[in-house]
């Protein structure tokens, strides 16, 4: 699906506004939008709202064989899924340029910066290590997906707990959360990406661009940094020439922003830990704002089941006994079938059609069908279905009198099969 095109007047207006140091939502040049971090019910599930942009990260783990060249290290896997929910231009299962760019940047930000101790993820050297997988889903795209994704990913990694394992000889036992408390990952530092967009060939600079600003921008600079002011990755795209001063200035701004965001993440993690310890409920269901007019919650309610049994037995009774089963077709000669001409022909199709429109009224038909199925299972046909030679036989084994005489081999076969069956038993 195509996105709404950008009108010329919007572009002109935005650029003019930047000249006056004004932004669409009234922010200052270096302001971030409001960041909100919430956690899901599971460990390692984190939602990040950056203004209207919203992403979700989920961390999971499994035991796998390590890579050959690194037998003592766990594996980290990152995936940013540009879900079509976030924007109509995103298509499912298609690797767009943007998704490659974001995935690569996240990998460089979190894996190549060695912020996670991968050696502690080794269970049996050369045989079993933990693979930690981070899935980031975009839920709503209003610009600056990268920063939101990096905050979500690192917060989710900090929040995640992997199951405890014990090694006895060659046996690896994985303990569930009831048996042993799960273990957090060991994280050395928290790299966070900060995006800067440039306009008019680098004359103007903005932090945390929103969607419309991203569409107008000439270039983008993404700096990933931790709170110790160490740059973990830096990437410039869009093909603008940046001066040394500009990069230096951006890195300074980034260091301020990163320390603010890191504090926010720590606070969020702390709050969640307290809430979990206190045993109060947490998770997405709890994060729905109750005061909003668009939200509503209902307590758990019992369902009145009076008369349910009666109704069920009534329906079953109304269905009554199933009709006669399909009459077997008369085969005039071996290998000849006949349709019409006074012969009542019934095809399997009917049953399928009935299956399709299961609804209140047709319940009785459904029952018949079910009974038929049960019935056929009780016949001989199913029992011998495991042997190959009987494929030709038996449309209706219970009525041998109707089987034409010209077909003795089949009945012989049947008998043979039966005897064989008995022998097997």
């Amino acid at each position, binding site marked *: *699906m195509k996105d709404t095109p950008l009108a010329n007047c919007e572009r002109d207006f935005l650029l003019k506004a930047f000249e006056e140091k004004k932004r669409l939502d009234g922010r200052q040049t270096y302001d971030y939008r409001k960041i909100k971090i919430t956690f*899901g*019910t*599971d460990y390692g599930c984190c939602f990040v709202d950056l203004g*209207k942009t919203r992403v*979700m990260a989920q961390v999971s783990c499994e035991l796998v064989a390590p890579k050959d060249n690194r037998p003592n290290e766990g594996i980290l896997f990152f995936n940013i899924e540009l*879900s*079509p*929910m*976030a924007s*109509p231009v995103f298509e*499912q*299962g298609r690797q767009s340029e943007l998704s490659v760019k974001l995935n690569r940047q996240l990998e460089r930000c979190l894996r190549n910066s060695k912020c996670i101790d991968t050696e502690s993820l080794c269970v049996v050297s050369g045989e079993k290590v933990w693979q930690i*997988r981070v*899935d980031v889903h975009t*839920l*709503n795209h*209003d610009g600056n997906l990268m920063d939101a994704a990096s905050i979500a990913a690192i917060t989710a990694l900090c929040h995640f707990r992997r199951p405890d394992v014990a090694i006895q000889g060659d046996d690896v036992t994985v303990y569930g959360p009831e048996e042993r408390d799960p273990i957090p990952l060991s994280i050395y530092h928290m790299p966070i990406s900060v995006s800067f967009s440039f306009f008019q060939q680098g004359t103007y600079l903005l932090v945390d661009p929103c969607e419309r600003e991203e569409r107008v921008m000439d270039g983008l600079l993404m700096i990933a940094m931790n709170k110790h002011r160490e740059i973990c990755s830096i990437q410039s795209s869009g093909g603008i020439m940046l001066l040394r001063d500009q990069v230096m200035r951006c890195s300074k701004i980034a260091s301020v922003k990163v320390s603010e965001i890191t504090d926010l993440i720590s606070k969020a993690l702390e709050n969640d830990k307290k809430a979990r310890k206190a045993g109060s409920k947490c*998770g*997405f*269901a709890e994060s*729905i*704002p109750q005061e909003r*007019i*668009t*939200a*509503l*919650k*209902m*307590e*758990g*309610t*019992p*369902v*009145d*089941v*009076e008369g*349910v*049994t009666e109704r*069920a*037995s009534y*329906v079953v009774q109304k269905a009554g*006994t*199933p009709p*006669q*089963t399909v009459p077997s077709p008369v085969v005039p000669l071996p290998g000849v079938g006949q349709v019409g001409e006074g012969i009542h022909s019934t095809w399997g199709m009917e049953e399928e059609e009935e299956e399709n429109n*299961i*609804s*209140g*009224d047709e*319940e009785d038909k*459904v*029952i018949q069908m*079910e*009974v038929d199925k049960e*019935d056929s299972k*009780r016949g001989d046909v199913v029992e011998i279905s495991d042997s190959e030679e009987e494929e030709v036989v038996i449309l*209706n084994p*219970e*009525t041998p009198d109707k089987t034409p005489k010209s077909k003795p081999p089949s009945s012989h076969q049947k008998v043979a099969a039966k005897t064989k069956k008995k022998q097997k038993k």
Partner: protein
Amino acid sequence: MTQSSCDALHFFRGGGMMEVCGSSTVSLREFGCEQSLLSRPDGSASFTQGDTSVLAGVYGPAEVKVSKEIYDRATLEVLVQPKVGLPSVRERLQEQCVRETCEASLLLSLHPRSSLTLILQVLHDDGSLLSCFLNAACMALMDAGLPMSCLFCAVTCAIDTDGQITTDPTAAQEKESRALMTFAIDSTERKVLMSSTKGSFSVSELQQCIAVSQKASEKIFQFYRDSVRRRYSKIL
């Protein structure tokens, strides 16, 4: 032959293990719903049942790809996004269940040659996921203002080894159950729009579960009405 089929029916009717008794386990977990929570989609809703939560977004009626264009009605596409990894066969099956239910209730012929996209994102799975998908889908479609002939809701029923019916089961209850059924029910005549079952059960159990679901659907439809009423309670 006839005799034996009658026997079969009698067997199931009279079977002692199949008796289901209505008990206090028949209840729905806490419900929650938020509409219009995302800015980009034309309609969005989150739906929670206990801890199970699903986020749904709808785009449309929008431009359709030529290859998917249908000349006399809108093309409905349902995408289920799992929480971990890429969509697999299981998600495809869920997509199909949701799509067929939505197609039955939407008036697709009012928007020919256009596309409707419904995206469902799992936020947390704690049982009854398929019914949560369907409920979230209905709220999102309603939020998008798409023409519908009726609303629909879904109820999951689990039958445990003792023959007890549990509605809206948690993941743990689902695991212990002998059979699991999900029914989508329409709002006008309380008919079954879609059913998805797993495990073995008798005819009378199926009927009981449908009857229980129909009873439970009343609560869910009332909840829909309450949340829409609350939303329009502000005089603008």
